[in-house]
């Protein structure tokens, strides 16, 4: 059976070139970079080389990059690190309603421990208002943490504008750029960002590696104590093969970004149009145009539930994801879709397709062949569709 992977926002395969390089560091150049001997020195040099590659892709200095075990840890280090370092100045943190759990749950943990949180709303396309940010800043605000691109609906926030305000008001600004880094241009200087989270496994690097950009001069209390690696900001024997793989993935992303984005956006648009033609009662979630991640498509297919859709697609070899509660074991569907004003019912029927390097037109054709059949089958079972068929009201797709 054909297998079509359309879940690159969840994770990507490791690029073969990256994997091959990593192999060398697993089995041959395995020294601990803290060691004095040549085994250690050769990995140390490669580690610093990787730091430069990561820094280059965001216009930062290598010394401003702290490697972590992933995006989640980097988000935690940024938020806890700043909250603890600047608690004398204040305890107010501003974030948004559409952040990843790595940010939201961390902020909420702080809120339970003496910090105060302002959670900014978004509009129906998922955008945060720059004005709202400005208005939320108080004298005791120590941190603004807003994501660059949303992982579910692909909405790209006006980071540079928010960065300008943060700078004017002298508030530290953290950006979760896990979904945008390596996919669209990211420039910490141009965007006035103080801290930025990135993750390797979203850009064809290995899982278990991420980095936090920490602008020179910004203080962060470490979360992991020990051997003093990463300039004492993050202890623990460095995951050298992983970090070196991440560095290589950044180099490849720098070369391929523009062409990948164009290809993926074209495939994405073809899929969207095909779905809209073939299936009724479908709603596009998130914006159209350049303020959306090129590889992201998110639609709600009404009257059916997301997990049932995913399972059915999976049986046909198609991997996608959903904001349905039933895929997460929680009771509420995606907080992102709810924050955008979707009803629970429509949020439950959401489906995300995220494109990557190896996807082809044939992949899209295959989805367009399978999806309508699946939707029909599930709608036949659905008591909600019944009602609609009987009433025959809002037939047109919501665009």
């Amino acid at each position: 059976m054909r297998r079509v992977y359309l879940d690159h926002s969840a994770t990507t395969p490791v690029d073969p070139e990256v994997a091959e390089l990593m192999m060398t560091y697993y089995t041959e150049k395995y020294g601990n970079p803290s060691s004095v001997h040549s085994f250690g020195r050769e990995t140390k040099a490669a580690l610093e080389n990787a730091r430069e590659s990561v820094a280059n892709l965001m216009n930062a200095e290598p010394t401003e990059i702290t490697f972590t075990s992933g995006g989640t840890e980097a988000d935690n280090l940024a938020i806890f690190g700043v909250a603890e370092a600047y608690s004398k100045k204040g305890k107010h943190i501003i974030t948004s309603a559409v952040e990843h759990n790595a940010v939201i749950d961390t902020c909420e943990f702080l809120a339970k421990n003496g910090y105060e949180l302002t959670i900014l709303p978004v509009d129906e396309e998922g955008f945060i208002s720059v004005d709202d940010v400005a208005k939320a800043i108080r004298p005791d605000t120590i941190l603004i943490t807003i994501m660059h691109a949303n992982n579910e609906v692909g909405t790209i926030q006006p980071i540079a504008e928010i960065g300008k305000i943060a700078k004017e008001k002298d508030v530290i600004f953290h950006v979760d750029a896990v979904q945008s880094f390596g996919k669209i241009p990211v420039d910490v200087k141009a965007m006035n960002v103080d801290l930025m989270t990135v993750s390797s496994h979203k850009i064809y690097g290995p899982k278990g590696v991420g980095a936090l950009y920490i602008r020179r001069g910004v203080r962060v209390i470490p979360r992991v104590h020990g051997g003093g690696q990463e300039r004492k900001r993050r202890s623990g024997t460095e995951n050298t093969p992983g970090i070196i793989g991440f560095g290589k993935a950044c180099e490849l992303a720098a070369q391929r970004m523009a062409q990948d984005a164009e290809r993926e956006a074209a495939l994405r648009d073809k899929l969207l149009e095909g779905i809209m033609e073939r299936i009724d009662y479908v709603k596009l979630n998130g914006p159209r145009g350049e303020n959306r991640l090129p590889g992201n498509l998110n639609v709600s297919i009404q009257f059916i539930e997301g997990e049932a859709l995913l399972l059915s697609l999976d049986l046909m070899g198609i991997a996608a994801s959903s904001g349905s509660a039933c895929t997460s074991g929680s009771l509420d569907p995606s907080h992102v879709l709810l924050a955008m004003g979707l009803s629970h019912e429509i949020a439950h029927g959401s489906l995300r397709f995220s494109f990557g390097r190896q996807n082809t037109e044939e992949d899209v054709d295959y989805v367009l062949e399978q999806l309508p059949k699946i939707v029909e089958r599930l709608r036949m079972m659905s008591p909600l569709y019944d009602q609609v068929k009987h009433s025959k009201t809002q037939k047109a797709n919501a665009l």
Partner: protein
Amino acid sequence: MYSEKVMDHFMNPRNVGEIEDAAGVGEVGNAKCGDIMRIYLDVEGDIIKDVKFKTFGCGAAVATSSMVTEMVKGKTIEEALKITNKSVADALDGLPPAKMHCSNLAADALHEAIKNYQEKMQNA
């Protein structure tokens, strides 16, 4: 994640559909939670002659609905009342823990349908 039996009932659900002028209809859940199950019964004497379902929900919701219809067909009302959400899950070789709470409502829907039938009988 799901057992083979769950996947079988999800992909090949038994007794999907409606019964016109059903003897009893029961519905549980709501769209907000992501699960709605509706069960239709046809009863002759004390025996459930036919049963159909319509479900909006995840794989577990569909499979439990399908399974409960199989378990109940040809049974007496009394026997049907003994079916629990747990026995439906067991008949499917179990469900993932997270699903036991939120999507395992098929027996409830069945009981609602029986209640509806019994109410109709009393009013008739």
